[in-house]
Structure formats: structure tokens, C-alpha cells
């Protein structure tokens, strides 16, 4: 872990500007077995120091790969010069960013390393089990990935702190062959927040591995979805994707300023009154959120951002500048991926909250529709128009789950589609293995209950 020894560098901060100094290490571990062959086996550590200086509303940033006293001085000076270069060339109407109350956010969770051999042995154990138990699969892959972040942050006019983001996953991927010889694929991630030893007991994983196998074998007999607007039940993972992609991005304050559809909708109805959505900082519904953020990279103590309350758009996610622009409090959403990256407004743990319906009743209520379980990826834009790839889905006929679907895509316009939500299940599913890709990568959590709604599905 990084040593927290930057405090005395605060004396180098220039007066009359706002400065952040961040030392950071990103650590990655990865192993992949594909059909029993180990095709990936590596470790990497990337660390360095950066300074960001704001003058007259324009930022200068500089970074270097060495975390030393000399480099701290150099990057502070270079970032200050970059800010001066820009403010000398650009006449920008600066927003006054209020000074925040100081404080120190301590490490809540250590980053613990694991020997590569143990990681390899675990992946092999899982791979051997799948190979032996499911010989009729066309192909299988078992991949370990760990991408921990460790940051020491000092600021001129906000909090300081040492924050960590350890997470690790094992992805199990299965491929089967359709009767006409075409491959179909499904995967399941295991793991989450914390270290290797917190996860990956094979006995505990076996039921989910079996479920995955059953699902991929059903998919090999899958049918094409029928294109058009359909009544569907979105599973919790899909709802999480909806929360993140379709609504979350439009309510990031930087995108609101860029003309996102959420701009003119503040305090207006954007969803049915069954929908409440929150970007949780570190604690959700009384439990630690999947990827907790206690302080962001601008030294802002992180707090929950309520985005939609009973169907009404209530707020946005902010960094310090956007909060000043909108005349509100910053929410602690500014984070950067690498030591050299500037903090951007990023989601943390974004979820639609559970309701009161029972999942079985939701399925039983649909005569002709689809149950969409798992997504491969998703995208949305300023208009709220979104799409998700659907890797796992089923038809619903006469209130019962039927045949599996082949890969398809759903789309909609978020604030129109959310108004069609008329049932919300009482269970919350979290997903945290993915990355958001807004300029930089960033680990994010997302979640939700099952939703009954209308959505446009692609197909033949």
C-alpha cells in the first residue's frame, strides 16, 4: 500500500489557486484459462503522482511516474504553469468554487496481495471442475481479474485522505453449440469488493455454475426475439444497467450542462411513482455498498445523490465545480482512473430501489412478453436513448417463463420507458464487476429490483 507522506507538500501549493495532489497506485492481477489452456498470466502495478490546479475556472494538470518529494514539487509547479498558460489565453467567466470544511478520510479497507500461484491454482480448480462436470460444453473459460486502486489525496481547500478500492472477480464463461452448429455463450462473474480470500470457495460457487450451465444449454435451443415494443420483466441486473446507462449518465451534472435530457426535467415527472433511484456513496439500505466511496478525488466527503424520488427527478451527481454552477452541495462523485487522469463525475453505486411486488406475480401477470435477465453491455446518450445487449432472456407465454432467447438488444428512451413501469419487485440485485467507460474506465456498482415495463426489443 502507498505511504501517506505527502502532507508536508501542502506548503508548496500556490496561493490564489485551488490545488489537489494525488499519489496513486493501480494494481492488476489476471489469469485466464481457455479450454484448459492458460492464455493469460500477468501482474502489473502502475503508480505515480499528479497535481491539478484550478485558476479562473480552468484546470492545469501534470503527472509523473515517480512518487518522490522531487516529483511532487515538479508536478505542482507544472500543473500551476499549465493552469496559468490556459488562463492567460482564455477569457473564461469563472465560477467561484466554495471552500469546503477540511478533515481526513482514513483507509477503510487494506489492499492485500495474493501469490499468483494461488490465483492460478484456484482458476485451475474451477476449470477442472467444469471440464469434468460439463463435458458437453463446446468451450469454457475461467478468468481472474483484480483491479485495485490506492490513493493518497491532499487538497488546498477540501478534505485530505487515503482511500482504497480493492475488488477481484472470477468470470466463468460457457459456450455451447446450437443444433445447426452455431456457438452461443453466457458468463457469470463471482467475487466483489475486497481481497482474493474473501471469495471463490468452489463449493459455494457450484450452484451458480450449475445455473449458468443450465442457462447456456437452454440458449442453444434459443429462438429469435420478435422485434417491436413488448411488455417485459427486466431482471435486477438489467435494472441496474438501466439505472446506470439510461438514467445515470443523463444525470451526471457535466452532461446536464452539455444539454442532456435531464436538464429541463428537474423537479418534473420522469418515471412512474414506483421508481426511486439513488447513487449511493458507501452505504445502501443499511449495508456496505458494492464499491463504497467515502471521499472522492477532489477531497469531497461522499454522500448519496438522490436522482429520482417517487418518479420525480430530484437532483444530479456533482463535482465541486458543477455543484457551484448549480448552486448546490457537491456529492463526491469526482474520480480518476489512473494517477495521471483528471477526476470526472462518475457514478458509484447506482440503483433503483425495491418495491413491493413479488417476482412470481410479475411473471404471472404477462400473457405474451419477455423476461430479460442478463446484459452484455449498454450505452446511452444525452437524449436518454439507451440500448442494452441481452445475453440471457426468455419468452413469457401465458404467465410462464418459456423458451430462451438468442442474443438480442433492447432500446428505449429512459424518461419515457420509466413511465411505463407498473410493477417493482421486492428484491435488490447488485452487480459490480464492470467498468464504466466515460473517457476513462472506472469500476462502478449498479443494481435494482425486477421491473415490469414496456420496452423496444430488437429481433427478426
Amino acid at each position, binding site marked *: 500500500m502507498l505511504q501517506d507522506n505527502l502532507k508536508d507538500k501542502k506548503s508548496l501549493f500556490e496561493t490564489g489557486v485551488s490545488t489537489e495532489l494525488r499519489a496513486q497506485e493501480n494494481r492488476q492481477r489476471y489469469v485466464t484459462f481457455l479450454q484448459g489452456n492458460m492464455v493469460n498470466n500477468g501482474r502489473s*502495478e502502475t503508480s505515480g503522482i499528479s497535481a491539478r490546479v484550478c485558476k479562473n475556472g480552468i484546470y492545469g494538470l501534470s503527472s509523473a511516474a515517480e512518487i518522490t518529494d522531487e516529483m511532487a514539487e515538479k508536478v505542482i509547479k507544472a500543473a500551476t504553469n499549465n493552469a496559468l498558460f490556459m488562463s492567460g489565453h*482564455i477569457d473564461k467567466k469563472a465560477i467561484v468554487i466554495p471552500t469546503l470544511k477540511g478533515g481526513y478520510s482514513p483507509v477503510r479497507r487494506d489492499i492485500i496481495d495474493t501469490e*499468483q500461484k494461488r490465483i492460478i491454482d484456484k482458476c485451475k480448480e474451477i476449470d477442472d471442475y467444469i471440464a469434468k462436470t460439463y463435458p458437453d460444453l463446446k468451450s469454457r473459460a475461467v478468468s481472474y481479474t483484480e483491479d485495485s486502486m490506492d490513493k493518497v489525496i491532499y487538497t488546498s481547500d477540501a478534505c485530505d485522505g487515503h482511500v482504497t478500492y480493492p475488488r477481484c472477480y472470477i468470470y466463468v464463461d460457457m*459456450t455451447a453449440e446450437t443444433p445447426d452448429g452455431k*456457438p452461443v455463450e453466457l458468463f457469470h462473474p463471482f467475487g466483489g469488493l475486497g481481497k482474493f480470500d474473501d471469495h471463490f470457495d468452489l463449493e459455494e460457487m457450484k450452484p451458480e455454475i450449475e445455473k449458468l450451465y443450465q442457462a447456456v444449454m437452454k440458449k442453444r435451443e434459443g429462438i429469435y426475439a420478435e422485434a417491436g415494443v413488448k411488455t417485459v420483466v427486466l431482471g435486477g441486473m438489467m435494472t441496474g444497467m438501466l439505472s446506470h446507462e439510461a438514467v445515470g449518465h443523463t444525470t451526471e451534472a457535466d452532461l446536464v450542462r452539455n*444539454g442532456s435530457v435531464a436538464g429541463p426535467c428537474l423537479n418534473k415527472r420522469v418515471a412512474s411513482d414506483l421508481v426511486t433511484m439513488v447513487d449511493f456513496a458507501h452505504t445502501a439500505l443499511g449495508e456496505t455498498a458494492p464499491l463504497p466511496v467515502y471521499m472522492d478525488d477532489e477531497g469531497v466527503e461522499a454522500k448519496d445523490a438522490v436522482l429520482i424520488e417517487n418518479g420525480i427527478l430530484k437532483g444530479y451527481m456533482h463535482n465541486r465545480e458543477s455543484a457551484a454552477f448549480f448552486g448546490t452541495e457537491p456529492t463526491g462523485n469526482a474520480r480518476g482512473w489512473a494517477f495521471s487522469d483528471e477526476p470526472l463525475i462518475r457514478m458509484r453505486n447506482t440503483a433503483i430501489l425495491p418495491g413491493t411486488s413479488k417476482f412470481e406475480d410479475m411473471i404471472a401477470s404477462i400473457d405474451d412478453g419477455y423476461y430479460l435477465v442478463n446484459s452484455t*453491455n449498454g450505452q446511452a446518450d*444525452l437524449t436518454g436513448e439507451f*440500448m442494452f445487449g441481452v445475453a440471457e432472456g426468455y419468452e413469457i407465454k401465458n404467465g410462464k417463463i418459456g423458451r430462451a432467447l438468442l442474443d438480442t*438488444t433492447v432500446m428505449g428512451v429512459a424518461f419515457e420507458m420509466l413511465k411505463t413501469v407498473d410493477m417493482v419487485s421486492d428484491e435488490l440485485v447488485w452487480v459490480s464487476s464492470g467498468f464504466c467507460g466515460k473517457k476513462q474506465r472506472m469500476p462502478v456498482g449498479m443494481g435494482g429490483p425486477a421491473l415490469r415495463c414496456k420496452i423496444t426489443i430488437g429481433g427478426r
Partner: protein
Amino acid sequence: MADLKKLAERAIELIKKNSCDGFVRVSSNKKSEFNIEGGEFTLYRTLFDENVGVGVYKDTKKGYYQTNKLTEEDIDKAVDAAITSAESSQPDDGNVLAPCAGTFNDVQGVYECDQDKLFFRVKELKETLEKDFPLIQIVAIIAQHNAADYIYATTAGTFSTERFGSYSVTLEIAGHEGDKTSSMVYSGAGTLSLDKPFLDLADFRFRVDTAIKQLHAEPIEGKFTGTMVLTPGILGMALYSISGMAGGGSILDKSSIYLDKLGKKIADERINVTFSVDDERIIHHPVLTGDGYKAETQDFIKDGVLNRFSINDYISRKTGFERAKNDSDGMIVRPGDKSLDEIIQGIEKGILVGDFSGGQPAPNGEFSGIAKASFLIENGKVTKALSETMINGNFADMVNNLRGISKETIEDGWSSLPYMAFDGIVISGK
């Protein structure tokens, strides 16, 4: 700056001393970047970074370690970590170091950043968009200069020293009028010269026009099967999907639908796709592949016939198929003999697709997603901008249903691609 050559030699000596084979990649990188967000300059950053990656082969076991620390002590640690990683690994006869590829000393591009001129071009782009295109909202412009010194060396004797620098600019815009905002439109280009305005690079003017027209986008009713015209950027994405389906893990685990198609026709005979390492329209010409072989230009699809699998040395050794001669950069697609207008004139009903927001294509080539920045084609004419429109098809089938290839191409510094039209695509609206 660290003496990269000395450090690379030190790593190779240390690997040899431990009776292993291996390679080292050492680089020193610098970046200058101007950012505009929401129509305003927001950030100027200058970044310096270094990297070392060490790969070790020990008794057919392979390990890899990477760090961005470049002192002698860090190099020693990196070699140790890579050896430990290899020792933890599984023996596999596919793990073999590439033979000596030779000695290279290569300098390309623009190593030093002209900060003032780069700033001038970014400011000019911002001001031109504001003045000449008042309906354009600048979401983001990122203009960069990237430069690197790079050494690749192996215990087999390969020693390559490269220096490369270039500029790049990415544009994210939307149409904006009152409370109305269009979908975002993206483009990007790489260049070695700052002599012409950024707006004249790649397809930037076309993208600006698209963003404005998208303000009036509307969905279509129902669905039909028609012709899809792919703009060059999206054509590149589709062809890379096919390259992926004919490469990587799907060849190793034998799940590729192209497994028995090498040397056979997989596409219309008018389709020719090459990955080039020496075409003058491409700003960077790699010297070596990622595996350490001398990079060579190679046809991917020649006259509709699959000419190679996109596989590395490891998969080649495991499967017996020949490895790809490059890392699939520099895509060049041979243009056709008709203009885009002539192709569109022959289409009864279809869609011009500027961008695609879709699910990851299935291993069998199935794709579906939203046609973004797109327009309806009716009776030989582009009639209206579209929203909430989905397209569905199969890449493998699509390339056999070619209607035409344009003679116009777009060069963005990384590829040269025409427009292509394909029949048999399901296009559906609300």
C-alpha cells in the same frame, strides 16, 4: 529520462542469467492534452510516464509483469516478478519465444509537440463551430500530442528502438436548439501535421451536418427488411467484429464459425480488406508484432476469400494455423467504382447508418442495436433523420449480401475505408 537501452539490456542479461528466455518492453511516454467540455476550455494537462513489461519463458511456463518504474532496482524486481509468475504457471508447449527478428532503429512522426499551434487549432475548431454552426453543441473536444520512445528486446537477439509522435483529436457534438438536444455524434482522427484546420480532418464536416439534421430525428413505424449503408467508421467496426470472429480464442477453442473457412470464400468477391504496416495513409507503421516478429502487411479478406486468422504465435502453435503477420492495425478497404450518391439512388428502402449503439455481437455474428446518427433512404433518396430505430442482422451473412462499395473513402490516420451497402437487414421502429 532513464536510459532505456541500458535498462533493456540489463533486463535481458538478468533473464539469461536465470537460464530463462524472455523479452522486455521499455518505454518512455509524454502527452500534452487540451480539453474542451460544454463548449469551454476546461483542462490542459502534460503527462510523463514510463513503462516496463517483462515476459519470461521457463521450461515452457510463461509469466509477465509490468510496472511504470524504471530504475535499475525496479528492472531487477520486474524480472524477478516475471520469473516468479512463470514458475507459478502451467507448462504449455505453446509458450515459445519468437526467434530473432533482427535489429531495428526506427523514427516516425512528430516527436516534439508544437503546443502553441495545437492550442491554435483547437481554439480555431471551437470558434468555427460556434460561429458557423450555431446549432452545434460542443460536448467535448480532446486534442492530444502523444510521443514515445520504445525499446523491445529479447534473449533471442531481437533489439528494436522506436521513436514515434503524433497528434489526435476527438470530437463529441450534438445538435442543440432551445430545450431540444440531438443524440451525440462522435468522430476522431490522427495526424502528423497541424497545417490544416481540424474541421477538415476525416469526416468531421459530415458529422457536424449529421448532428444538426439529427435535431429533427423521428422514429419509423413498424419494421421492414431493407438495405443498410454503413458509413466508413461503422464499416470498420463491423469488419473488426468479423476479424475477431475469425481469430483469438474462438480459433483456439474451435468455436469460430470460420474455423474451416481459411482460404475459402466468406464474403462477396468485391470485398478486399488489408491490415497494412506501410500504407502512407496510416500515420504509424509498427515495426514488430506484439509477439516480436517483424510486422508485415497482410490481406485479411482478398476477393472475398478469408486469407488469415487473426491469431498470435501462441494460438498458432496450439492449433497449427499460421499466425497473423501483424496486430490488425491499419485497416485498408479497397474502394468501389460508384459514388455514394449512385449507390443510394439504387436503394428502394433502407438506412444510412452513421453510428451504431449495439450489444456485443454474438459469436455466430448476430448483431442488433440502435442505428444512431442515421437516416432513412426511400426511393433512392435520403429522406429523414431517424431516432429509436433498430437494425438487426448477421455480420457473416451481411458480407455476402453486398450491394455496393463507394469510390469515396475516409482517411482518419488509422484506416482508409469506403461506404458499403448491404441488403437483407431488418430495420425496425416503434
